[in-house]
């Protein structure tokens, strides 16, 4: 016998592991045990196989690799004795999964065991099959399972029922064969069989419409009776849970009724009475009773409308919401989310209570409540709700601020009645929690500011004031610095004074102070500092009296260790000192940024409402750390390394801001400077820095989404097309390249990783739906889809609702549509964002079933379809 495998029993091993004081000791013990087990396996040790596998399960639970024991499981399953089989099957379920090829080998053993005379062995095999069955196994073994649904022992029948669920999920085509045996299970008395039978029928209805119709016709009355008997049943000790007989079965039945009643008036009518009975009679002082009530409310909310029942359900939710038990409040909030689409009036009544929940000490409740409040907001209550939320922002926990700001910003953006209100609210958020605000939010704010010419003066003055009190909020500083650079003159002159504000006295030196403080601030990051330099350049032209001082500051940064800042400082210094005559043209105000393109681009690249904050924005890769020998390669290979993430959105946004392909007006504007700008550019790019390095910093600009406002500012005036050109594979000298491309090339080729062609997902005589795809760079499994709906008919569609369903291997998240009204004859469109995660990424392509409801001329129209023409590899 092997000297290692001899001594330790399972107990001794567990004791040894427990006695370990450090992780290293534990690893050592486990390494020794694993070595012993491997040795035993290679010697084909019969006697201790059972014990070794039990040990492996324990080791596996602790999170160590145990793949070498997989074959042992198969050997144990194939052995004749029950104890060996039992541990073998358990090992099979724990150590293996359906992806492993070893599983192919076990099919035959399972098949034999399913036909075994011993019912316990049959049970073991069914249980294992139910947990790990793959599509191939499902096809091979479906007939056995179907037969076992009628087995004499109920314990086998219940397991066969659950096994069937797995089979029809893997191979939906097989569903038809199981409808009849499944219906038979609904008549059983044994609770286990009933429980699993109802579950099986529910799942059958989901995969097969034929089954759903069949159950609607044949089994509703029976189910209602079962539920009634159960609800009225006398005390039965076996299934009693705090005074209620088998709440689990209650819940299963209610769930199934929900599936049957959805969209079916007759079916809903049949179950009204029993639902009313459950809703009123169930005792609400214990958790089990509340679980049933909760499920009952969900069912009432989902089936066809019955006024009285809905009122009952909403009342129950109201009671839940005012409960002192946090669990109950949590589920109430959860359910109100679902109820809001049906009866928003009823939910609005609880607004005050819900708002209180946002301030709860419990993170789970806060999160639910915040999401609910977000849905509650409409044009009428936006002002008061926003005020409440912003007030709360002051006192909320730091870890909650990220979510809260994201939601507030999204609400403000979506419902703002006027621009001044929007700007006011955003400034409040930035001053309160500017460090938690996402980049795209403050980008959007700047876009809005540029689009409100009459508010420029007001905004820059408000920002100035805000900065005096909240000088530590990074994004507030950025916006303030940007606005000071652009509209500094309005700050001094108090131009465009609104009635609501008091004039303030700010000198030119004060304005420069603001920027200088931000630049010197220890915690300012690269983006902020770069923005400061640009603001200074702009101010140097706006405030001639401070020009000298500004030049000194800029010159100081020529020695910066950060390449990006150093280069900017050198360039700007050169503009200030050597190119006086073109300076004023260079630093003119930014052209108005196009809101529509911005929001479009943003929708394509970043989800509008991100629910969690990731903390600080990633630091921009500093040009210095890049190997200077291969900057161009880096530049072209955007998709492969760490800079990929910002590049995909930043690149787009940059082109957008530059107006390369959108706004001819801005291109003309830059053309004017081109004649004189050419030599400046040559000058700028060749001063002091070797050409290779200057392209490295180009890369920086391209790759930094935070940076774009500022970098655009710098380069937008100088060289819009070279920037675009920089990413195409041409000459080795970037400076040459920049000039060669000047004025000629408008084509942009930023490599954004894999791209997918848009598809026409659905088209009928009245409606066209197109899908645009994008990927989040760091998760290839997730696809962002932007659906665009176009009305082809001459009538306006109202109450437009798009729904989609996906198979289990996909996960779907739908954002709200941009509008629920679709203008006639293609005069505009509605867009909606979808996010799909594919757990079988690379193996299966996407499929989706869609349903579109809308009202045309007061008539409801329903269109349905299946989309299977998705590009592969999504």
């Amino acid at each position: 016998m092997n000297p290692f495998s001899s001594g330790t029993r399972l107990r001794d091993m567990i004791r040894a592991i427990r006695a370990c004081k450090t992780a290293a000791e534990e690893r050592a013990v486990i390494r020794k045990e694993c070595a012993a087990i491997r040795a035993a396996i290679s010697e084909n040790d019969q006697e201790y196989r059972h014990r070794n596998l039990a040990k492996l399960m324990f080791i596996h639970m602790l999170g160590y690799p145990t793949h070498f024991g997989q074959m042992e499981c198969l050997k144990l399953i194939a052995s004749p004795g029950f104890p060996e089989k039992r541990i073998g099957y358990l090992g099979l379920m724990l150590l293996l999964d359906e992806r492993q090829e070893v599983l192919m080998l076990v099919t035959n053993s399972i098949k034999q065991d399913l036909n075994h005379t011993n019912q316990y062995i049959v049970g073991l095999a069914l249980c294992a099959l139910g947990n790990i069955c793959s599509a191939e196994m499902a096809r091979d073994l479906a007939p056995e399972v179907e037969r076992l649904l009628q087995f004499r022992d109920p314990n086998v029948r219940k397991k066969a029922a659950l096994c069937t669920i797995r089979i029809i999920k893997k191979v939906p085509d097989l569903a038809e064969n199981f409808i009849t045996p499944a219906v038979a299970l609904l008549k059983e008395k044994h609770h286990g069989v009933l429980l699993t039978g109802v579950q099986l029928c529910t799942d059958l209805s989901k995969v097969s419409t034929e089954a759903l119709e069949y159950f609607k016709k044949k089994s509703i009355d029976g189910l209602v009776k079962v539920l009634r008997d159960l609800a009225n049943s006398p005390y039965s000790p076996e299934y009693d849970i705090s005074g209620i007989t088998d709440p689990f079965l209650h819940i299963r039945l209610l769930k199934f009724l929900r599936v049957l009643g959805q969209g079916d008036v007759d079916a809903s009518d049949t179950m009204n009475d029993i639902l009313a009975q459950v809703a009123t009679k169930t005792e609400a002082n214990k958790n089990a009773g509340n679980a049933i009530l909760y499920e009952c409310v969900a069912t009432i909310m989902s089936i066809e409308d019955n006024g009285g029942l809905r009122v009952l359900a909403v009342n129950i939710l109201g009671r839940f919401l005012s409960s002192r038990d946090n669990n109950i409040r949590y589920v109430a909030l959860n359910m109100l989310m679902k109820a809001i689409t049906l009866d928003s009036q009823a939910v609005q009544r609880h607004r005050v209570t819900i708002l209180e929940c946002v301030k709860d000490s419990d993170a789970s409740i806060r999160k639910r409540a915040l999401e609910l409040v977000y849905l509650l907001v409409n044009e009428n209550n936006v002002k008061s709700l926003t005020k409440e939320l912003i007030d709360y922002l002051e006192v909320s926990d730091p870890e909650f601020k990220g979510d809260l700001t994201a939601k507030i910003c999204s609400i403000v953006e979506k419902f703002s009645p006027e621009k001044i209100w929007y700007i006011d609210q955003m400034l409040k958020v930035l001053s309160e929690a500017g460090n938690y605000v996402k980049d795209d939010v403050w980008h959007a704010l700047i876009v809005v500011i540029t689009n409100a010419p009459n508010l420029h003066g007001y905004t820059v003055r408000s920002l100035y004031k805000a900065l005096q009190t909240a000088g530590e909020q990074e994004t507030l500083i950025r916006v303030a610095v940007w606005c000071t650079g652009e509209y500094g003159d309005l700050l001094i002159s108090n131009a465009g004074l609104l009635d609501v504000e008091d004039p303030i006295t700010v000198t030119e030196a004060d304005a420069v102070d603001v920027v200088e403080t931000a630049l010197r601030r220890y915690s300012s990051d690269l983006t902020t500092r770069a923005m400061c330099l640009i603001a200074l350049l702009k101010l140097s032209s706006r405030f001639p009296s401070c020009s000298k001082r500004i030049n000194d500051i800029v010159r100081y940064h020529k020695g910066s260790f950060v390449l990006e800042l150093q280069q900017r400082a050198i360039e700007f210094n050169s503009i200030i000192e050597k190119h006086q005559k073109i300076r004023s043209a260079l630093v003119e105000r930014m052209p108005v940024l196009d809101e529509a393109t911005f929001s479009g681009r943003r929708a394509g690249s970043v989800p509008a409402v991100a629910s969690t904050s990731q903390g600080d924005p990633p630091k921009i890769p500093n040009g210095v750390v890049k190997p200077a020998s291969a900057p161009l390669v880096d530049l072209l290979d955007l998709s492969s390394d760490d800079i990929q993430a910002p590049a995909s959105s930043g690149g787009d946004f940059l082109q957008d801001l530059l107006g390369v392909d959108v706004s001819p007006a801005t291109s003309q504007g830059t053309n004017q400077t081109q004649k004189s700008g050419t030599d400046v550019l040559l000058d700028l790019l060749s001063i002091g820095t070797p050409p290779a390095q200057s392209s490295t910093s180009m890369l920086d600009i391209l790759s930094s989404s935070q940076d774009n406002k500022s970098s655009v500012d710098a380069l937008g005036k100088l060289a819009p097309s070279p920037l675009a050109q920089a990413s195409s594979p041409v000459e080795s000298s970037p400076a040459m390249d920049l000039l060669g491309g000047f004025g000629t090339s408008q084509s942009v080729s930023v490599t954004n990783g894999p791209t997918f062609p848009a598809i026409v997902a659905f088209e009928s005589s009245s409606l066209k739906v197109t899908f645009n795809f994008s990927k989040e760079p760091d998760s290839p499994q997730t696809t962002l889809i932007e659906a665009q709906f176009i009305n082809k008919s001459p009538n306006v569609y109202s109450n437009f609702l798009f729904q989609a369903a996906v198979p289990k291997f996909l996960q779907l998240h739908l954002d709200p549509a941009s509008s629920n009204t679709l203008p006639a004859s293609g005069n505009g469109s509605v867009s909606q964002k979808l996010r799909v995660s594919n757990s079988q990424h690379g193996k299966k392509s996407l499929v989706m079933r869609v349903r579109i409801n809308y009202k045309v001329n007061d008539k409801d129209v329903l269109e349905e379809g299946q989309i299977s023409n998705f590009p592969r590899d999504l």
Partner: protein
Amino acid sequence: MGIRFVLMVNKQGQTRLAQYYEYLNLEERRTLEGEIVRKCLARTEQQCSFVEHRNYKVVYRRYASLFFLVGVDNEENELAILEFIHLLVETMDRHFGNVCELDIMFHLEKAHFMLEEMVMNGCIVETSKSNILSPIQLMDKAS
């Protein structure tokens, strides 16, 4: 499929039993367990028993030094899962007699057999304690 995983974890955050009903590889499991345990163990008695994590909802309940955590999807009735955890504990109590962490550690396979009788493929199979325990008792008698 409602239940995605069942975990038993002690106060120190060490896993004592783990059963997954969807496949996660070793690395994913370790990180998931770590994240969830950190989140749940930090919560106080008064806070609710539900924690949202990634795309799971974790329903947890504490019994002395042992935490029972059940990961479910969005469709599942959270209150019912809470009741299910209690049923699981009562069942183990009936078998081991006032179950404790060591019972589960040293009889890991038995705890798994019990769980196996109660949950299969993420669905609850049986809710009667005597039905759950009868095959296990039968085995104990035979051996």
